[in-house]
């Protein structure tokens, strides 16, 4: 017997009707943040600053709707950052005397905590891979959250610290290699946590966190060996609002490609174990090749989409700063090479239906190309983009 339609649940409420009270609460909070910012600082903001504020607040509100944990994450990070900024007051030297600043609230402390927790998270995920219990991986995820939060807080506080160092130097901290490495570690961790939650496969972390731990290692070396954290003023060409959107978009791209490559590694491992030890516990703990393939595709897709945006934004910025939207500068050219590489990857998947180890290998090779575009160009080739020199 058929049931009345009312009893079935196929009617889809509109997008806004799906939102719950806390979604609206978060939206209201974001709107309040924007209003307060405008009230306090509006007269010092030009239309680009206001546009940037709206974009940031809007993106955050949407992220909060789209991915629930973002709400709590962003609120905690925001409160911690404000606390650090409040402790500073107008005195940069406060971090030498104030206990809280020295150990928790300053940008430097934030970076150290981020490094510690991301390392711990990597270890926990690796333990989880070899243990029968789910517990280590849960701990790994928790540590990853804390690490990403510390990194995000560090960037926000550093933003203020740059202004405290010298008000005329002030810029958003995504301008040099040190700052973007913090961004990379925090952003990639968050992107990974998103996929972990969506797929429910915690054991991808053992692979993905490895690349993040590598980035943290580089960051620490860069900080201790090269004093990279010392604030320096910006070269004139970087002093542009384009930077605020160009750089973060790029790092969504790099993050996506990095995750995809590490999932490629996981894919190859699982694929191999399926052949040699199909019944072993470790084999079953690595997510299935289907899941890995699917997430690998998704992270390359999001990476590619944002990398495209970043490259186009970069071209528009270059048109303003360097007198032409494309100069075949080594960084630009390598961005094109990275783009062509993933374009080819996506074409093979879409049109030829390629799957399996070849695509996994290709994703891994893709990360090497991306890394060269990100770091190698700055190290070995000179050009207009020589801001992030080692």
């Amino acid at each position: 017997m058929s049931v009345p339609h009312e009893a079935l649940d196929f009617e889809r409420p509109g997008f806004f009707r799906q939102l719950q009270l806390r979604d609206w609460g978060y939206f209201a909070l974001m709107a309040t943040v924007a209003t307060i910012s405008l009230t306090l600082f509006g007269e010092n903001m030009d239309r680009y600053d206001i546009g940037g504020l709206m974009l940031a607040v809007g993106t955050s509100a949407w992220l909060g709707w789209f991915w629930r944990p973002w709400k709590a994450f962003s609120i905690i990070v925001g409160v911690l950052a404000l606390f650090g900024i409040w402790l500073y007051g107008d005195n940069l030297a406060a971090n030498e005397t104030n206990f809280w600043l020295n150990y928790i609230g300053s940008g430097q402390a934030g970076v150290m905590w981020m490094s510690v927790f991301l390392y711990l998270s990597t270890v926990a995920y690796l333990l989880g891979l070899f243990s029968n219990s789910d517990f280590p991986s849960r701990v790994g995820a928790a540590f990853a959250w804390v690490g990403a939060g510390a990194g995000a807080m560090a960037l926000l506080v550093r933003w203020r610290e740059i202004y405290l160092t010298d008000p005329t130097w002030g810029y958003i901290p995504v301008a040099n290699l040190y700052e973007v490495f913090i961004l990379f570690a925090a952003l990639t961790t968050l992107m990974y946590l998103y996929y972990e939650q969506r797929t429910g496969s915690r054991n991808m972390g053992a692979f993905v966190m490895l690349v993040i731990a590598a980035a943290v290692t580089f960051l620490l070396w860069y900080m201790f060996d090269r004093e990279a954290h010392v604030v320096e003023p910006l070269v004139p060409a970087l002093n542009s609002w384009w930077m605020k959107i160009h750089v973060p978009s790029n790092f969504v791209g790099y993050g996506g490609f990095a995750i995809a490559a590490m999932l490629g590694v996981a894919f190859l491992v699982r694929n191999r174990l399926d052949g040699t030890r199909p019944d072993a516990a470790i084999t079953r703990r690595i997510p299935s090749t289907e899941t890995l393939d699917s997430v690998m595709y998704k992270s390359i897709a999001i990476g590619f989409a944002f990398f495209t945006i970043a490259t186009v934004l970069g071209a528009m910025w270059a048109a303003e700063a360097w007198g032409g939207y494309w100069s075949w500068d080594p960084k630009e050219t390598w961005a094109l090479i990275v783009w062509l590489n993933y374009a080819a990857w996506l074409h093979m998947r879409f049109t030829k239906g390629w799957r399996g180890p070849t695509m996994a290998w290709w994703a891994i090779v893709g990360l090497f190309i991306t890394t060269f575009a990100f770091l190698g160009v700055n190290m070995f080739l000179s050009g207009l983009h020589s801001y992030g020199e080692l």
Partner: protein
Amino acid sequence: MSNNDQAATAGPAPASRQKAARKPRRTRIIVDFMGSMSLAITLLVALAIASVIGTVLVQNEPYTEYLMDFGPFWHEVFAGMGLYQVYSATWFLLVVAFLVVSTSFCVYRQSPGLLKDLRRYNLQVKEKSLRSFHSSATGDLDQPQEEFAQHAHRVLKAQGFRAREKTSEGQTVIAAMRGRWNRMGYLLTHVGIVVICVGALADGTTLLKLNEWLGNLEIETRSVPISEVPRSAWVPEWNPSFRGSVEIPEGASANVVFLPVREGYYVQELPFRIELEEFRIERFSTGAEQSYESDLVIHDPDRDEPLRHTISVNHPLIYDGYAIYQASFADGGTKLDIDAIPLGAEALQELEVPGRVFQEMDVPTPDGGNRTVEFINFRSENVVPLLNEEGVREDRQLGPSFDFRLIDRTGQGLYYRNYMRPALQEGAMYFLSGVRETPADEFNYLFLPADSDDSLERFRTYLAMLHNPEVRNAIAQQVARDDDTVPDEQSEAIARTTAELMGLFAEGGYGAVHEEIERRVPAERIDEVRDLMIRILHAGLQGLYMEVLQDEGVVSIQEEEQRFLEDAISAINAISLYQSPFFFHLKDFEHREASGLQIARAPGQSTVYAGSTMLIIGIFLLFYVSYQRLWIMARRREDGEGTHVVMAGTSNRHKVEFEERFAHLKRWIIDQKPVGSDPQREDSHNKNT
């Protein structure tokens, strides 16, 4: 780039594909080849490799450097292949053009099918093929066929599907689809790429190359005044796209830009004249540039009044389709008021040298010859970061400096950088002069000690006296006499030695002294004699210094005075390595700056931006809208009342999520039961991921 998404077409073959089975014709083969995925991927790879070459091999260097790096053979080969300007090489442009053509063919070939996909619901399906789908389900319901169809339509509509229905011979077929924008994504991305490339080709140097090839243009490789550049290297105003640069000193103007081409350049005419009124630079406390800007005046015959506008980095002026950017800055020929102070006997005389940056002039030397000085650059500020005693960074302003090269008769010469004002160095003040062999080397510094008036007076007096043999003799005798440890009968000999050593030191520093000792003394006694001789020399130098101080009226010698002597001795010792007969002391200057402008005309820019926008929108449609199709086939059950249902679906993206959705649809449509407590939430997640 054929887009035959496997999943999307795994269903019944569309009509267009059946047509393809016809006998191939030649045009068809060409279209297939040009639009083929293999060709496209080959071209993508070729483009990527060419791009890599262009980044590994530094582009647009002077040809002489390439010749030195690669040798004559490979230089010829590389130059012939256009590897020094990969991105404007003909073969590179051909690859890009080929890619554009290939993509266009792909779009041309795919569009009809795609557009048809949007409208065709494909109601001609067979039950057998539906059953072979990966997502497929069957069921037997008690519901009558009509009622079931209505129910199915309601579910599909609520789930965002568009559906068509056809009933024939007692069989109802419902074909449904959603996410049709995904198909537009394909068109937008590929058309976007074509549009970008077309815009970029319009902004490239193709037209210049063509004129070069036709013999209308010939590049200029010499660095000559603009009046001497032959007309064959002038590009008239008609050139629609270019990017060049020009340096305009303050108060001057220009109506051309220079377009760098291979080993030379073209001169591009502008329809207006740009005058630089003033150039300003703002600096951070570290001395680094914060921003710089130029006050420009555009004199255009088409305008009644000249246009005044200030440009700065990141804030260009767009005038009449020409974009004028603040690119760099340089010296514009600063006037330098210099005293050439001889570093020898004539140290107290000076020669006034009226210099100007970028000029050369001959300066007579004290020995009767002359040297050519070439003024290279001037900097009004020099800030160096130093760590103070507490280890905190402090930025030190060293003030103005100028760079020059001293050339001797053979055309050889070293590079120098002199600072105008004395600088504090470990507690004392010095006039600094850096010297190096090539501009790529680090500077070695000559530290000339400044006296208490921050002047070179005392040092010059000391140096002049040291170079005077009579003074040396007098001082030497006095020193020998005053020394109680020296027996009277040896006094004369000691005095002679002292004077001789001082003379050697004045001419060649410690090096000359050591050489002389090595020449005269047997090897086994050298150490002993050397120590003695250095002591004697120092006694003489000290005696000379006392004389200088006495003349100045200084009576008591403090640590400061003692240190001055040591510094003076070090400086005189270093003069022999300094290889300049003068110290050029900058007295005054008249700063004149030049602004480096980049001027571009890029009519294709908005086309490129439009293409980029299409590309980005297309990518999001392709990735985040999945094109889903669903078929439901219903007919009367053979065993009596009720309906037999076959349902199948496919999606070209997000297979895992689609399977879940299909399971839900099956539960609603065939099982007619609710999915769960909160399926919408679940569902919206699927939609978004």
